[in-house]
């Protein structure tokens, strides 16, 4: 119990006639990365919204950092941060102003220092005083995540953090997520990319048609399938590897 950052029991939610969640149960250990894997419309975002106090469930309970989301939303909000599906950044403000705004809203003692540190940590210091409208998708996502880290929340929700990003930006986000967990932050991320879950997560839960149909470590999930046959396959580079190799070479040449 004390070791769990999130406990979800029998969560149900319907939008009018659409029964999105049909009894979802899972638990997330403190300091771990937990991936909620599922296709579009499986209910991942609905789960995250309920846990982040944006939606109320119809039935079932959800406990975040020791607080019930329905009865103690303010306590929950103080201990979490949400990075939604679409980069929730203010395009008209600069990167620095975005961070300052969140720092002031989180009432940290030194907003300037906090935003400077985050700008540096996320490689945004050169772009700090440009309007976010001029940022690339990867930069926006980095700023978005940086904004979520203001005030060092214990738990961070990342709803499809790499959807729409190019491969390089995706690798960067992965690095950030790993570093977060190494620093002791609990991460719940949703994704539709199998590889992302495989790369990042300590535990993976598969959400399908409103229910968790599998939940375990990667090794445990692999055991659910019949033992692998040994086959000899000639290893071909994936397109992603080729792309990254060429792009990386170009960069080195440019230097």
């Amino acid at each position, binding site marked *: 119990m004390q070791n769990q950052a999130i406990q979800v029991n029998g969560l149900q939610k319907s939008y009018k006639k659409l029964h999105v969640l049909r009894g979802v149960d899972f638990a997330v250990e403190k300091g771990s990365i937990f991936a909620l894997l599922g296709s579009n419309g499986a209910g991942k975002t609905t789960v995250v919204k309920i846990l982040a106090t944006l939606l109320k469930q119809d039935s079932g309970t959800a406990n975040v950092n020791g607080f019930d989301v329905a009865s103690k939303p303010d306590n929950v*909000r103080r201990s979490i941060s*949400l990075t*939604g599906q679409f980069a*929730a950044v203010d395009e*008209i403000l600069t990167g620095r102003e975005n961070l300052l705004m969140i720092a002031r809203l989180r*009432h940290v003692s030194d907003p300037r220092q906090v935003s400077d540190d985050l700008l540096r940590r996320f490689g945004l210091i050169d772009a700090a005083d440009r309007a976010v409208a001029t940022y690339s998708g990867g930069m926006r996502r980095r700023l978005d995540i940086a904004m979520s880290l203001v005030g060092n929340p214990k738990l961070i929700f990342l709803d499809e953090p790499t959807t729409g990003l190019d491969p390089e930006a995706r690798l960067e986000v992965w690095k950030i997520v790993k570093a977060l967990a190494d620093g002791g932050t609990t991460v719940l991320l949703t994704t539709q990319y199998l590889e992302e879950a495989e790369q990042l997560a300590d535990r993976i839960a598969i959400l399908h048609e409103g229910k968790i149909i599998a939940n375990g470590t990667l090794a445990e999930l692999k055991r659910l399938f019949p033992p692998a046959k040994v086959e000899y396959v000639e290893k071909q580079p994936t397109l992603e590897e080729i792309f990254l190799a060429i792009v990386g070479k170009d960069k080195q040449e440019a230097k």
Partner: protein
Amino acid sequence: MEATRSYFFNDMGVMLGRSMRHVLRSLDTIITVCIMPIAFMLLFVYVFGGAIRAGTDNYVNYLLPGILLIAIASGIAYTSYRLFMDMQRGIFERFHSMPIARSAPLWGHVLTSLVSNGISVVVIILVALVMGFRSSAGVLSWLAVAGILALFTLALTWIAVIAGLSAKTVDGAGAFSYPLIFLPFISSAFVPTDTMPGPVRAFAENQPVTAIVEAIRALLSGQPVGNDIWVALAWCFAILIVAYLFAMRAYNRKAA
């Protein structure tokens, strides 16, 4: 709960600072809220003005209250637009998942509307002074005018909030303001109502803009305001309260 309440004004201040930057950094907002009403004023005074018999020798004095109301009616469309964009872009979700007062993001927009419309009203009055506007009003009368305009702005802003929260498209979020901008034309803002045909005149004389225009005009020219000011205040308060209730209902539904 206590913590969120004691930070309410801080949070609202941050929100106000944010959306004031939006106003000051978007050229088209400034053009619409200041330059368009000024263009109307120039047009009516120097093009139509000579042919209009308003029973006054200073048409700028006669016209100014209506121009101010048009400026406010077009200014509030941006509140609706900004609110709509906030909902679309997910930044409201970020705010609502943070430990801040639930209504702070909304009040930030409402206050911005008051401040930015206040600025455009002042700019328009300064231009009017250059064009020959003169007033014999004392400090108290000016304060009363400011109060009525602020109340009118608030009332329309809450209507804009309803539109911004319930619109399905960007165009829809702004479209509601067109009839509001048009209302002053069917009132005593530009011409006296006597020459209008019966039904139009009946509408013009009994719609809120006429009472508000007449009250402001009387205050600025040092005439007795009579009943108009009470009718004007009653309209503003009534619209304000009804719009506020509907807006809050829409807001609470969106931000459960």
